[in-house]
């Protein structure tokens, strides 16, 4: 019998509210399957399971706020005898003799508890629009709330109400960001390095590539930058990993956390897994998928918990240089500004080139400036040879 617990989706998370089970007792699951939706300060997250097995018991009822680490469900292996099925009631939350740890639902998340049927798409839509599902009238034959029902509810409701729901969510996210960033500034001795990189060849190469591609397969320069970062990190592994219990633990894979701004001022940094193994097009597809899901509130637990380094690109707003704050327990953050045209002197000649300012902000406990400098020069080299990316 294995236990499925409330995961920690970032250093700042203490508890989450179970919104929905996507599994039933008796159902077979495998590693990586999405089994539940949990509401966190970062929005609704699809939680994956890390073991293969058969669902034995669901121990927590939707609508319950549960601390990180608390058992949510039990899995048995193929041959094991099922536990006598007890109805899932809040009383069943406490397994034999163990103290009952589940926190009673707070008023706000409880309103979102599914006492009604709703499609996953509609739930996300409601999440994005800040619609209270308990106020939505289903139009379908089986009383299932659809996306159209949510849209209708969103339209008929007063603007003030929309704004206040969005403000509550934003305030919760603000708290989470505040906790993580305060910890970072308190504990991490940051050092900063910056370099102006000529990206004329890389951008021209990408434009050529995009000319040949249908609109559905065009790649943004942001994806090329991510690939270059992932490759440079392979050269300087002390920037890729975690500072835990007073020591640096390098990560084996490169999972690039990507800072994604949410409408209304929120911020998440979910991971693109194994970024170093992806082509520019695959990176674009992964990035596009991640941005879409981040903005519709459908990120997966692994994406929120296992980024090994973070990249933030603030060039869109015209910023030239990013001075980052590391997201603990990571040890580095790479920032990019805007691509701009600048006069550029090289080999005695003066040219107009497209350049970008890249910054590395790193944890001095895990690396030294010399190695950080090597990272930036590797990044520069790979952006000069875009066809190798």
């Amino acid at each position, binding site marked *: 019998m294995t236990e499925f617990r409330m995961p920690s989706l970032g250093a700042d998370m203490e508890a989450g509210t179970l919104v929905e089970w996507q599994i039933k007792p008796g159902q077979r699951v495998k590693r990586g399957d999405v089994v539940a939706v949990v509401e966190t300060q970062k929005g609704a997250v699809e939680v994956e399971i890390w073991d293969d097995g058969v669902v034995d018991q669901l121990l927590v009822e939707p609508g319950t706020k549960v601390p990180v680490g608390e058992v949510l469900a039990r899995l048995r292996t193929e041959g094991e005898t099922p536990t006598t099925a007890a109805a899932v009631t809040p009383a069943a939350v406490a397994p034999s003799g163990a103290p009952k740890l589940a926190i009673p639902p707070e008023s706000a998340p409880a309103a979102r508890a599914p006492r009604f049927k709703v499609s996953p798409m509609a739930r996300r839509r409601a999440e994005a629009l800040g619609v209270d599902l308990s106020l939505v009238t289903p139009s379908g034959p089986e009383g299932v709330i659809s996306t159209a029902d949510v849209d209708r509810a969103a339209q008929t409701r007063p603007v003030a109400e929309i704004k206040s729901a969005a403000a509550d969510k934003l305030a919760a996210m603000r708290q989470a960001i505040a906790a993580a960033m305060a910890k970072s500034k308190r504990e991490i001795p940051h050092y900063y390095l910056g370099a102006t990189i000529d990206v004329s060849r890389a951008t021209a190469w990408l434009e050529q590539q995009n000319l040949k591609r249908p*609109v559905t397969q*065009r790649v943004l320069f942001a994806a090329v930058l991510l690939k270059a970062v992932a490759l440079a990190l392979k050269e300087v592994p002390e920037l890729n990993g975690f500072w835990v219990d007073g020591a640096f633990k390098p990560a084996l894979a490169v999972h690039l956390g990507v800072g994604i701004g949410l*409408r209304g001022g929120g911020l998440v940094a979910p991971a693109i897994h194994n970024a170093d193994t992806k082509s520019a097009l695959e990176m674009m597809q992964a990035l596009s998928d991640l941005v*879409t899901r981040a903005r519709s509130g459908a990120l997966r637990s692994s994406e929120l918990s296992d980024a090994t380094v973070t990249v933030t690109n603030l060039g869109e707003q015209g910023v030239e240089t990013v001075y980052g704050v590391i997201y603990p327990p990571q040890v580095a953050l790479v920032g990019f500004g805007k691509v701009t045209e600048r006069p550029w002197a090289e080999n005695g000649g003066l040219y107009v080139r497209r350049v970008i300012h890249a910054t590395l902000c790193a944890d001095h406990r895990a690396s030294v400036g010399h190695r950080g400098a090597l990272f930036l020069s590797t990044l520069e080299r790979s952006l000069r040879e875009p066809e190798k990316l």
Partner: protein
Amino acid sequence: MIRDEIRTTLLDALASVAPEADLDTLKPERLLRDQLDIDSFDFLNVILRVHEKLGVDIPEADYAKLATLVGAVDYLEIRLKQGGGTSKASG
């Protein structure tokens, strides 16, 4: 008639990336990006939706022409008349 259809398609696409925005107050001559706080991903999604609905192929070099609502309607009307919309029919 066709301009209305293009406008509706554009507004639908914009509503999908900026669900909280009040599109009735959009100033047609001002930059969409400034009015709606959309980034290059949102913009690419708008282009994709327009491409899906109207079948118009929009080269990357022309993206700047879609920066305002009126500019986008003008551009798409011309593209549709040129037969830029045939790309969908031919696959």
